[in-house]
Structure formats: C-alpha cells, structure tokens
C-alpha cells in the first residue's frame, strides 16, 4: 500500500525548508530588553479589563466595564475628574499615567477560570497589556492572579470576596481592594447579636464552591464565637435555580436563622424560595425566624425585589454614602450613564485609579516598583474612609458596611439602607489568621 516516491530534488527542497524552519528560532535574540513584560511606549499605555460579559455575573461585568471606561476618561483628563479630586494622593494630574495616554482592551472572563486565563493571556501576549484588572468571581480572580504572577504583570482584583484571594492563594503581583468573607463575618456578628440575640440556632445553605466555603467558615466562626449554634449545613450546586428541596429540611430542623451563603442569581432564587415557604412568618423556639445574607449587592437586591426587606447583610460600598469621594464618584458615574454605580463598579474604578497612582508615584511601570508603591500605602477619599493596602497580604483594610433591605424603597436603586459602618479595627485580622493561612506571596515578578 505504501509507496515511496523520493526524488533527489524533492528531498533537497523539503530538507532545506525544514532546516530553515527549525533553525530560525535559534537565530533570534530573545525579546527586547526593557527589564519587564510589555513595557509601554512613549505615547500610550494599555490596560487590560477582564470582566464577565456573558454568564451568571454579566450584569456586574457590564457595570465594571462602565466604571473602567469612566476611570480611563478621568485619568486622561476628561469628564469631571471624579474621585481624582478627593483622592488623598495628588500624584495623578489628568495627563494619563506618567505622561502616557491610557488605552484599554477588554476581554470576557465568562466567569470560567479557563476562559478568563485565555482572555488575560491574549491581552498580555497580543495587546501588550501592562496590567490586568476586573472579574466578578473568586475562582476567576485566583486563576488570573496566578497567571499574572507568572507572566510578570500586575493584577488588580475586581469583585472577589473569598478569603483565599489574599489568603491561601495570594500572589506578590496581585492586589485586592474589595473586602472579604472574614470581614463580612466580623462586621455582621455584633449586629446580628444585637438584633436577634445570642442564643440562636443557625442553618447554612452554601454555594458549592470556593467562595461559599470561606464565607460559611467566616460567618460560622464569628457567630459561634458570640454564642450561636450551627445546626445544619448543606452545599448547593452553583447552577441550581430552584431551592425548594433545600428549604424543606430547614423547616423540619429546629433552626431559627437561615444563612444564605449565596451570591448573584443564586441568592435571588434561594431567598425568593425561602420567603415563599413562609420562613419569615415562622416562629421557632419562641423567636421570629430570620434570614441573613452575608454578601449583599444592589443588583441582587433588585433581583429579589420585596423579599429583601429587613434582611441583614454586608457590602463593600453603597452609593448612598455621603463622604466627598463617594459623592464625586456617584455624580460623575450618574452623569455619564444615568444611574448610580454598584459596589462592583466602585471597587474596579478605585483599583484602576490606585494602580495609576502607584505607577505615578513609583515613576515606573515595572511591576516590582508598582508593588513597592502599593505595599503599605495609606490613602483616603475613595469612599471607604482611611484605607491601608497591607504589605503582608496585599489586602485593603477599611470600614465595612452592614446594610439591610429597605422597608420603603423610594426608587429602583434605593433598595438598601446602611445600618452601621463597622470601623476598620473591628474587621482587621493577623496575616497568619487560620482562615488565611497556608499561602505565600512569593516575590514580585517583572517578567521578561
């Protein structure tokens, strides 16, 4: 069946082509020697905005992208400057970053680690992005953070609430402004004790993934520390849309508090189911049955409608805050898009500004210089009061908001009311706290 049809000319030709193909790479010198990956040119610098544009968190992603576009506009001197005027560091002057015009590329994380990494890689390898930021899931944040560490670019995390992002999976090139599960637990516990008492029996429904675990762990340990008892714990698949079968066992247990460690569409559905089953009208052990949602967002409150009324939760930031920074941000965001920003938009906007400011102060785009400028950086005027970027784990420490669903909302955006601003001291923990132990920052990576 096989037939060899070799001619002298054929062999020579193929040999020459193959030889040239194989030898070519060895002829070339490796890369340009600027000392770090994707060093920008003299006129412009490219940032990579990697946000979920499809999938369960597409709403958050769209809001994040709006915030980034606004941040770029402000950095380049357009618009009203937003938080640049209230930011305590005055290094940024509206002429871009280090005199270079800010440009950006976007990618779709699809809220999948693989897709997010592919998108980040293409922004780094193809578009020459010097920094990657965004995302609305901890799984994605951890995956992309590890990629940026390897590639030698800075990662400014978007909305990611799991302890692991700056705990077990922390990386030297990665920074998080958003708060985390531990802070939610620590801020919520005293409010829950004050309102519901200290002898409660809690039942946890937890989304079956990394963020769900750390949030349950955090809420459990802080509520148990003040006397609550945990009587049940069930993991629910992330793709679940009907939670009826998970609510029934709650009715049969002697629990008097239900904690929903769910986010986004999950929380909207589970809370709606819980209310439909009449949990909120129940009396157990002579007490009113209560529901708690550790991580709240306005987009979720909107989805759950009237069901959120009176339900406690925590949030990173809310547009109704009355400090100068928040007011400036809400004003410029509202002017541009016609509605107030979400907490996801806020954290992404702040992260973009913090990165630009760090580069400006460091006088260099080199990741290691930026890391040095951000580590231990204290700032104010960004909507959360005085804030510290802790050097040990690259986590921001700031006040945490405890909110509850508003009884009489005045508009479709006015759904949450701030119950308390928990001071930063109450939510601060040691870098080697058991919920965060097991990781190492490593050393900053400048790449090629």
């Amino acid at each position, binding site marked *: *069946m*096989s*037939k060899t*049809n*070799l001619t002298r000319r054929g062999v020579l030709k*193929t040999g020459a*082509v*193959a030889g040239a*193909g*194989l030898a*070519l*790479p060895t002829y*070339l*010198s*490796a*890369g*340009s020697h600027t000392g770090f990956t994707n060093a920008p040119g003299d006129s412009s610098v490219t940032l990579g905005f990697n946000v979920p*544009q*499809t999938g369960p968190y597409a709403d958050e992603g769209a809001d994040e992208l709006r915030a980034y576009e606004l941040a770029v506009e402000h950095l380049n001197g357009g618009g009203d400057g937003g938080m640049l005027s209230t930011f305590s560091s005055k290094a940024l002057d509206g002429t871009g970053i280090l005199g270079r015009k800010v440009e950006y*590329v*976007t*990618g*779709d994380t699809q809220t*999948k*680690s*693989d*897709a997010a*990494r*592919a*998108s980040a*890689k*293409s922004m780094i*390898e*193809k578009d020459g992005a010097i920094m990657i930021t965004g995302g609305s899931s*901890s*799984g994605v944040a*951890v*995956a992309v953070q*590890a*990629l940026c*560490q*390897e590639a030698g670019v800075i990662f400014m995390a978007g909305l990611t609430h799991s302890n692991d992002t700056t705990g*077990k*999976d922390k990386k030297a090139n990665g920074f998080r402004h958003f708060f985390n599960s531990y802070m939610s637990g620590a801020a919520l516990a005293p409010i829950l004790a004050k309102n519901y008492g200290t002898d409660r029996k809690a039942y946890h429904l937890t989304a*079956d*993934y*990394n963020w769900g*675990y750390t949030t349950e762990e955090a809420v459990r340990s802080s509520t148990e520390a003040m006397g609550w008892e945990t009587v049940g*714990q069930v*993991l629910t*698949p*992330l793709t679940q849309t009907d939670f009826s079968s998970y609510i029934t066992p709650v009715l049969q247990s002697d629990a008097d508090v239900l904690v929903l460690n769910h986010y986004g569409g999950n929380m909207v559905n589970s809370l709606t189911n819980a209310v439909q089953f009449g949990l909120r009208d129940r009396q157990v052990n002579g007490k009113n049955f209560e529901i708690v949602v550790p991580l709240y967002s306005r987009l979720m409150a909107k989805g759950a409608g009237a069901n959120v009324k009176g339900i406690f939760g925590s949030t990173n930031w809310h547009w109704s805050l009355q400090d100068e920074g928040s007011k400036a941000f809400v004003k410029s965001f509202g002017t541009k898009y016609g509605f107030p920003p979400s907490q996801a938009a806020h954290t992404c906007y702040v992260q973009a500004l913090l990165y630009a400011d760090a580069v400006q102060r460091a006088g260099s785009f080199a990741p290691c210089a930026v890391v040095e400028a951000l580590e231990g950086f204290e700032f104010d005027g960004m909507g959360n009061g005085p804030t510290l970027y802790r050097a040990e784990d690259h986590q921001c420490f700031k006040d945490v908001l405890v909110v509850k669903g508003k009884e009489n909302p005045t508009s479709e955006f006015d759904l949450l009311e701030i119950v308390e601003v928990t001071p930063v001291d109450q939510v601060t923990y040691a870098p080697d706290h*058991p919920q965060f*132990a*097991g*990781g*190492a920052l*490593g*050393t900053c*990576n400048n790449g090629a």
Partner: protein
Amino acid sequence: MLGLEKKDATLLLIVFGLTMLAPFLLNPFPEGSAMAQFNAGYPDLMQRFVIFGIFAIGFNILFGLTGYLSFGHAAFLGIGSYAAMWMFKLFGMNVIPALALSVVMSGLFAVLIGYVSLRRSGIYFSILTLAFAMMSYALAYSVLATDMDGPDRQGLLQKGLTGGETGLQLTLQDPRILGQKAAEDGNLPVPNIFGLEMRSSAELELGNWVFTFSAGYYFSAVVMLIAFYLSIRIFRSPFGMMLRAIKSNQQRLNYTGLNPKPYTLAAFVISGMYAGLAGGLMASMDPLAGPERMFWTASGEVVLMTILGGAGTLIGPVLGAGAIKYMENILSKINSDILHGWFAFLPDGLEDFVVAIIYPFIGKGWHLTLGLIFMAVVIFLPGGLVEAGQRVARMFRGKKAEDDSKSASTEPAE
C-alpha cells in the same frame, strides 16, 4: 515517505509547513495597523490551535471513522489535564512524564466509559457518554474538590483531588520530588522539557512586523504532527478500513461473522487518549486544570470543530478547530469602540447604523456568528471546510479536472 502514499505524504508535508511557519502566516498585518486586530500569531492562541487540533483529530478517529457520536469527549480532556497537573505537583516540571500520565489515565478512563457506553449505539451511545462526562464534571467540581469537614489547610490534599471551581493549581508547597520546588527567584517553576521552558520565546522584528516564536508552541506543534501522522496511518490501515465498515453497515458486519465491539472500543480508547494528550498539553502550556474543561459545552465544541472542518477527512478537524478558536479569541475581542474606529470615515448617522448592524455579531455575540457559519456549512457544504476547499480547487482546475474526477468516480473500488 514514512510508509505513506504520495498524496498523504504531501498532506503531511503541507501541515508540517503550515505549523512551522504559523508565526508568520498568522501575523499578516503589521503591528499598530488597524488590521492588527485580526492577527492570531501570538503564542497562546497558536498553542490552542494545535492543541485543539489534536483533540479534534482524535475525535475524528471515533466519529469520522466509526460514526459513533460521543458527546462526552471533554471528560478525557479534563482527565488529561488533571493527570498532568498532578505530575507537575508530585514529581517535577518536565512535560514528558506529565504527558505520558495524561495519555495513560485518559486511556484507562476511556476503557471504562467505552466498555459501558459502547453496549449501545446511536443516540443512546451519545447520551451515555454525555452522562459520563457530566458525572466527571460534577466529581471534579465538588465531590473530589475539597473536604469541608476537616480541611487540612497545610496539607497536600487541602483542596482535594481537583481543586473544585478554582481549578487545580501549582503551589510552592508541592513536593515535586524529582524537580526543583521553586524557581531561583522564589516563584513557581515553569513546565519545561529538559530545561527548555514552555513559556520562553524569541521575537523577530522585520520592519513593522513582530513575529513571536514560542517554545511551547513548537513543542505542541511537533506533538500535533506526530498525532496527525498516526491518524493518517490509522485511516489507511486495515483497522481503519474495519472502522469504516462499522460505520457503513454494522449489521452486515455482524452477519459476516465479525464482532465489531473490539474495534469500536479500540477506536474509542485511541480517541480518548488523543483527548488526554491534548488535555495534558493544555496543562503544560498553562499549568492550571479547571472542571469547566469537562463541561458538556466543551464536548459539544469538538463535535462542532469536526463537523465544521469535515468529519471523516484527515485535515478537516484541524481546520475546524482553528476556525472556532480563531473566532472565540479574535472575534470576541472586537468591541464597539473598535468598530466605531473602523467606520469613523462614514457620516455620523450612517456610522452608528453600520455599527449597530455589525455589533450583535462580534464581541460577546461571536456565538451568533459561529452558529450562522455552522448552519451555512451544514446546509451548503455537508463535507465541511474541506469540501469548500475541494470545490474551489475544482473551479480553478477547470474542465479537465472535471473529466478526471468523472472517470475516477466510475472506477471500481479496490
């Protein structure tokens, strides 16, 4: 050459030339030009082209030859990735043992899944494989992911066997008994082949063009060429003929006294091992393995690739894989700003109109474009992109070739 007929040898040489020159061919537009958006010659995407090429070549051995439509092939891709990751974590960062374990593990799972699934054919077979793949996904996503009751946070198994939704990643605490635990700078070591790092690359600047030659890409390309060669040999072997016989009429084969089971199982295992190899390569290029690699959409994707390129043809699946990955990575990144940039020369109202027309088909709407192209191919070109190529070739060759093909078609079979 290499035991191939002249036609196949030419095809192999063409594929060899295309893969080796890919950094040039995929970067036709100069850096900074408006068309640079369409350049695909960066390492990550080129690696994806060849890796998914391997995946589709393997799938084609099952689907193209035997006609058994597996809807769960992504399971083997995932198993291969996890196997390679565990090799990196436990033994060292050399990719050769990692790829070996990927192939072996996916082969074992393929024997198991194939033995059960192949008891049925047609739609029942597809559903069985789909069920197995979703079971694997669920296992990887949560059951094997973590241990809620007593997390040993310092230990090796702190995140279970698969790491759940976050995926399985390298850490500095991994033992790596045969290799270095960490790179000199204290960061994670990088997958390599005897010291040559997969992520290392060289750049060639010619005028405005920048061409990147990545070690990882060339390694994957060589693996794909070997896989492609093996697939040609399988297609042309008596074994391949037997698989075709199963596709054309399994009952007749039974009546002639042949048992098709061992042949279908062998084809299933071989194609599972191809998928495992592709999964292992994915982990070697980017050391992370996530469960979504096993989701049913990933299984559906390889079916699309094979059909789009041309099921049952040698080169088709590779072309299909390239086309889909190109759209996923290039088309999906065009946003409305870029569109406005392109059409800025038009009057304002017209510009907005044109952008509004095109916008649903790009960016996050790339699935829509893919769907339309897929429908067009299935309706007008049942033989996939390969058929399109043949038609074009026929058109150029003119009447003479037409006569040739006529006489060829009346020839009796061998």
